């Protein structure tokens, strides 16, 4: 019963504090919004969200469906993991795919292998309209990128799904304003205040299952512009490039076409925590090719309706 004693201390340690805040936020969405959804991709941040939702609502079912906006450029083990996790939880999963938007003609890419990260915005907005969602819960964190530092926990989007950095509602105390008119929605970020380190510490503490590619494994890669580009059907080696087999792990598991692993031997959450403490490269900079293009690329994408 040591764990119980530990938990009943008046003082919360930093993970308790973050967890309690996130649970509070999730419950606010459930109470204030008529038709919310929780975005679940199988990525680590959304796995944390699922555990927080369990803590917020069990023994009841989640008061919202899960939704995945599928780029079609997924690592197969992530999709397998996603479905397995949904089964275990017994919750409802909605999948809407960028490829359907492409078939409808609402998404046009220059090339089949282009990154579909930005195109996700279109599919997400279409899904929001289709289901009439007034709130979408996501796993974005303020420390991920500079444009997110001023993001609200309840982030208002107009009827076009647009984010206007100058028209954000001030957030005071823990008194969130989730009110929207018909057709508008809020994006809600319960782990806004978490850093990558916090996320890994929480995964370790809660012993959360993650897709295997978050942990060190052998993989064929091509070193390119300081990144290790994984060899996949969508990202084949370019002429003259040498394929190497390296021990790597992924720090994010987004669209295959723009997600790279880092060299690492860390094969447990604890080892990743240790590595994260001393790491010198932030998550997106090391692993997302599209964010490197411009310092402000995230801000532009957010204005277009991206998370």
């Amino acid at each position, binding site marked *: 019963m040591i764990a119980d004693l530990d938990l009943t201390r008046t*003082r919360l*340690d930093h993970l308790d504090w973050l967890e309690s805040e996130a649970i509070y936020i999730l*419950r606010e969405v459930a*109470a204030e919004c008529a038709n919310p959804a929780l975005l679940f991709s199988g990525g680590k941040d959304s796995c944390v969200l699922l555990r927080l939702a369990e803590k917020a609502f069990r023994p009841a079912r989640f008061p919202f469906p899960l939704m995945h906006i599928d780029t079609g450029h997924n690592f197969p083990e992530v999709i397998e993991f996603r479905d397995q996790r949904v089964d275990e939880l017994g919750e409802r999963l909605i999948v809407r795919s960028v490829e359907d938007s492409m078939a409808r003609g609402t998404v046009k890419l220059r090339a089949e292998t282009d990154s579909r990260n930005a195109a996700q915005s279109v599919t997400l907005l279409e899904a929001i309209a289709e289901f009439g969602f007034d709130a979408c819960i996501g796993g974005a964190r303020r420390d991920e990128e500079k*444009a997110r530092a001023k993001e609200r926990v309840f982030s208002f989007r107009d009827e076009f799904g647009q984010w206007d950095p100058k028209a954000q509602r001030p957030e005071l105390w823990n008194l969130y304003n989730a009110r929207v008119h018909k057709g508008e929605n809020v994006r809600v970020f319960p782990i806004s205040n978490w850093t990558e380190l916090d996320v890994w510490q929480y995964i370790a503490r809660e012993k959360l299952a993650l897709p295997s590619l978050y942990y060190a494994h052998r993989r064929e890669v091509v070193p390119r512009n300081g990144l290790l580009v994984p060899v996949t059907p969508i990202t084949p080696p370019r002429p003259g490039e040498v394929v190497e087999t390296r021990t790597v792990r992924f720090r994010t598991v987004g669209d295959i076409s723009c997600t790279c692993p880092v060299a690492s031997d860390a094969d447990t959450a604890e080892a990743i925590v240790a590595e994260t403490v001393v790491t010198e490269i932030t998550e997106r900079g090391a692993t997302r090719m599209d964010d490197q293009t411009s*310092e402000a690329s995230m801000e532009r994408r957010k204005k277009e309706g991206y998370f």
Partner: protein
Amino acid sequence: MNAPVHRPDLEDRGVLRFITAGSVDDGKSTLIGRLLYEAKGIFADQLAAVTRATRKRTAGDALDLSLLTDGLEAEREQGITIDVAYRYFASPVRKFIIADAPGHEQYTRNMVTGASTADAAIILIDVTRVGTGELLPQTKRHSAIAKLLGIRHVIVAVNKIDLVGFDQAVFEHVRKEYDGIAKRLGLTDVRYIPISALEGDNVVRSSERTPWYDGPPLLELLENLPADRADASLPLRYPVQLVIRANGSTAEDFRGYAGQVRSGTIKRGQRVRVLPGGETATVEAIEAFDRQLDEAGAGRSVTVRLDRDVDVSRGDVLVDAEDRPILGKHFEAELCWLDRTPLDPRRKYLLRHGAKTVQARVDGVGNKLDVHSLSSTEEAETLVMNDIGRVSLTVQQPFVADPYDDLPATGAFILIDPTTNQTAAAGMIRKVTQAS
């Protein structure tokens, strides 16, 4: 047990939230940049991006730490920060959340927003702009808002001490001047540190260049400040967010009241009263997902089960059965107006307090507060954006209305414009004038 993952030898002191007040000229962004940089909260590629941006903007070679905190493209173009930005760093014993409130236009609104969640305020003073004269008006303004929002700890960072030759006399002059302000405002916990944000003196490490200063460097001070939320001697306030029901999954139907303890402690076996209804019941269990707790302190989110069926819904507050908090229907409050549309006393607003939203009417506007002098000015008829003023309010349904200075968690509210849904005002209850 859940051992701390990467620092088994060190106590985890949780989270400290603080606000930094001051303008870009005072070196505020540089100070934040320095804290992040030194605490290794800034990783290598962020630094690389900063170096690129600096090269684009200026000819100088020096790393501009302030660029690390200026977030949005539009602001970088204008060269000012226009909104509260949140920054994170961790030392081996504590996680820190900085609310970086800009010092220019919309300044009151932004600082009130950032201050509402802060345990501490860093008031930054540019010593080269004070010299042997008076402190700047903005310093008074920042301090007044810190007081208004009930921030317990104030740290006066006397910056650019390197530019006055690390002169103790200048530091002592600033201290004496600020002591006067603190006394007038009633700030009780004020600490002074001579720093150079640019060069790093007394930010993370004690500086050899200020041998006359024997206090801790800034980071050490922040690591050791008490976070006030967790005071167990305060009365219990447990606003119910959600009623959780599950049928059939277990032997008996489950009915629990989900919420976050806002102050005090809730204990198994405790007699509690449900307000505003007034019924009492005993706490049968405190559920935390996969375990049951004997008690839960301020800040913890749990689900409470009671020993009998009582009428509890969202917005109700559980308090100790012996406690008789005032249920306010009419009260006086201080409002900080946040919206571009001014206060219109003829209209009704939605008032959000705890987990409750009720209709509210502003019966009268009293004195506006002059944040420069912290004194009341003439009677006002309305409040416009960035105004702070005393109002009297009537709410449609009474609720547990604690004076903000006693219990910020249940003394704070916001007003929402029901037409635009904008968050129109931040409110602090000062006095209940008529109980229900």
